[in-house]
């Protein structure tokens, strides 16, 4: 028996298949992955993301701590904005990727992966103590429920339970407001490549808010979405998933995360990352499409002229593009777009080619 979000009974009532995900009992699908995937792209999907962690960093030196432990220059993030960042160890290996919500220079919320909540929290506390920073680090993960509401109809549906005009939010900004009377944090952001929102509010209100959104969104095609479609949605947009595209053995340069690193400032891991840049990055994360028939999945091996050159981190049959595609680490010398590679699927080598990322991008703007 795993950890339970406050919505487990709601999922069971909706007929979800429940699986273990990083120690949590989570819905992997309600009807089927393709239907849920398409519902999110075309109408609206509602995701239980209560398993993810919320860590608050507050106080006089909250800014200093985050400058130190995260890859982003916090001074460049405006109040009310979000930034995607990584936390690295001294070797430049990725401890986690996270979003930083900046309330002001003395108050931040870090939204972290479920499986890394405790290590991230301990790491922040350890560095704060070591540097003697005047800062309070609080793990509020079990106080906040988190739902993602994603898709072209998400704004219209969420507006009905939100007490401010959602037009006030632009991409990667947030505001505090009330959700059917519950105090919440609402951001325009997500993990699907669609217009969408992430909402945070008291843990115990999860069931009420969940049911309300499903009820109010019915006409606009809202559907509950499991982790299966969450994975295909993010993969089409080439968004990384911790434990697949990155871990402590990969640096941001390898994991296509150089863009979340501000090398103008100091942060833990920076020197190692720059040293790696100098020396040459051994492997790179690339996107591929299958040329031969077959679906390449994690952790199938990748070959070129008989030499093993990498492995698949994530792969699927893309419901939107109807192509077998995926992400893979490849030795840098082979990691250019257009390069042909072979992926071992069971006992056969199947041809694939490296393609530009992302696989999918919403054309009418998010």
């Amino acid at each position, binding site marked *: 028996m795993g950890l339970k979000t406050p919505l487990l009974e709601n999922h069971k009532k909706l007929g979800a298949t429940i699986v273990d995900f990083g120690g949590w009992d989570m819905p*992997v699908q309600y009807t*089927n*992955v*393709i239907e849920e995937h398409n519902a999110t792209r075309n109408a609206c999907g509602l995701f239980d993301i209560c398993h993810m962690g919320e860590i608050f960093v507050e106080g006089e030196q909250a800014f200093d701590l985050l400058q130190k432990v995260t890859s982003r220059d916090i001074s460049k993030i405006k109040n009310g904005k979000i930034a995607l960042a990584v936390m690295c160890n001294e070797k430049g290996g990725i401890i986690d990727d996270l979003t930083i919500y900046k309330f002001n220079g003395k108050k931040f919320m870090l939204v972290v992966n479920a499986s890394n909540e405790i290590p991230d929290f301990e790491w922040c506390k350890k560095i704060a103590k070591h540097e003697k920073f005047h800062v309070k680090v609080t793990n509020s993960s079990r106080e906040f429920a988190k739902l993602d509401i994603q898709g072209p109809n998400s704004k219209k549906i969420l507006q009905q339970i939100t007490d401010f005009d959602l037009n006030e939010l632009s991409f990667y900004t947030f505001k505090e407001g009330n959700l059917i009377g519950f105090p919440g944090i609402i951001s325009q952001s997500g993990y699907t490549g669609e217009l969408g929102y992430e909402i945070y509010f008291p843990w115990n209100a999860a069931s009420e808010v969940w049911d309300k959104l499903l009820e109010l969104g019915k006409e606009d095609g809202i559907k509950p979405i499991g982790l*299966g479609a969450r994975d295909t949605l993010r993969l089409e947009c080439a968004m990384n998933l911790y434990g697949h595209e990155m871990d402590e053995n990969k640096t941001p340069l390898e994991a296509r995360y150089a863009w979340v690193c501000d090398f103008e400032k100091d942060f833990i891991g920076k020197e190692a990352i720059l040293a790696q840049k100098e020396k040459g990055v051994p492997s790179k994360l690339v996107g591929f499409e299958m040329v031969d*028939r*077959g*679906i390449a999945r994690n952790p199938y091996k990748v070959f070129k002229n008989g030499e093993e050159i990498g492995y698949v981190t994530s792969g699927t*049959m893309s419901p939107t593009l109807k192509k077998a595609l995926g992400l893979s680490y490849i030795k840098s010398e082979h990691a250019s777009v257009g390069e042909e590679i072979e992926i071992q699927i*069971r006992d056969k080598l199947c041809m694939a080619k490296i393609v530009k990322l992302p696989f999918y991008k919403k054309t009418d703007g998010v």
Partner: protein
Amino acid sequence: MVFELNPHDRKYTKEHEWVKIENGIATMGITDYAQHALTDIVFVELPEIGKHAQQFKAFAVLESVKSVSDVYAPVSGEIIEVNSSLPDAPEKINNDAFGIGWIAKIKVKDEKELDNLMSAHEYDEYLKKSSH
């Protein structure tokens, strides 16, 4: 959940394959229960014609968006025909697992092997038991 009735003109395996014998030829596929459990089948790897299938050994592969599943031969014998329309239309298995979604035909080597399989009634009971 309500599944399509398991037809009485064939036999069943514990791994949820069905097999129908006509003139010594076994036509096989997966059951409606199995296609429900797999959900969206998006890839089919068929067995090779001319190869020898062995009862209860994996000989084909079905993949959904999320998962990879082996298909086991319900009887031993030479594979004489495969449903070659499936690679281009794997959804046929979801749409009609007991009919147009058939997977392969095997020339039955030993009819005694059929005694290792379940009747429709026994398979119904087996599903009831395993759903608890």
